[in-house]
């Protein structure tokens, strides 16, 4: 195992930690807003770390850049999705913030 692989594995492990945190928040938090908060934040960071790990393992810079571009797009969409869900929950009186 060389240094790149060790670095990538550490990044993967850190990313998985944030994913587990996000999933725990999704399951344990009391209402829509806190769940969304836990989920979107932790997932962006977790996916970012995993994408960084994958980018360090990539064969060339272009593949690495593509992986990071995927992370960027997922961050954009998940932030907007979180906002849209919270907005819908708020305006439809489905659930008021506790």
């Amino acid at each position, binding site marked *: 195992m060389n240094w790149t692989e060790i670095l990538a594995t550490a990044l993967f492990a850190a990313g998985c930690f944030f994913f587990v945190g996000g999933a725990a928040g999704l399951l344990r938090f009391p209402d829509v807003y806190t769940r969304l908060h836990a989920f979107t934040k932790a997932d962006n960071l977790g996916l970012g770390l995993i994408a960084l790990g994958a980018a360090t393992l990539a064969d060339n810079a272009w593949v690495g850049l593509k992986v990071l571009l995927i992370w960027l*797009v997922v961050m*954009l*969409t998940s932030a*907007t999705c979180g*906002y*849209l869900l919270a*907005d819908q929950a708020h305006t439809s009186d489905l659930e008021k913030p506790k």
Partner: protein
Amino acid sequence: MLWSGSRARMTMLFIGFGGVVALVWMRLGAPDVALAEAAVGAALTGALILRAQGSVPSPLPERSLPWIIRGLVAGLSVAVFSALAWALISLDWQVRPGLEGAVEARLPESGVTNPVTAVLLNFRGYDTLLEVAVLLIATAAVWCLGRSPETPRLPPGDPLYLALLRPLIPLLCIVAGYLLWLGAFAPGGAFQAGAVLSGALLLLLVAGLPRAPGQMDTLRLRVTIAAGLLVFVVVAAATAMSQSTLLQYPPGLAKHLILVIEAALTLSVAFTFLVLFQGGRPAPPDGRA
């Protein structure tokens, strides 16, 4: 209420399951199938089911089934699983010669270097031709059922959503073109590209913009939906006349013909999914209901 909750849960599980299946295909070394499963199986079918869920009235609250039915269902599941497991265990795993050899041998003649595209659009092009015809017939059937119900929309002018669309729509168009071009020599192709493009169209549709694509029953929309099949049939007829065999591309022209067919197919697939999502004939352009 409980039932509608579980129906939404079923949809979400279906979409999640599609993602997992795509990963399984990837792990099995079939990236073409994985891409198709993720784009069409999970994302687009999920969107269609979600849409249908909104327009179909929620059924009566579900009564809890008697234990004997539940026991029968559980027993049947276990029996099917055991039969499948037994079949897999007793299968002879000796590698048999498949058709890979034949495909590999004729690949240089096909005009493309991706064997999957070669099979889909050259060696067994007539299969794909008929599949495209099925898509068109499905669209016609949906249109025959009536006008499209009101599409669920976000409140118009949501600044954050529009700010997301501004970079995302061009990016999705680029990805669709990239997948279309990539299909000649790597996993990708018309259906995947069409799925990505229709994702972009759906995003525009639910944004509540006044001139979102596919909302008007215009000649242009109909031509776009039929374009894939039309181009395919024209090419098939031309090859049948000049080469005496259906879809036997003339040597040297194969790559260009495949690309033309795939480009038309991409557009048609994208707009077909858009009108399927709308679930009926869109309103005519002069606004009559």
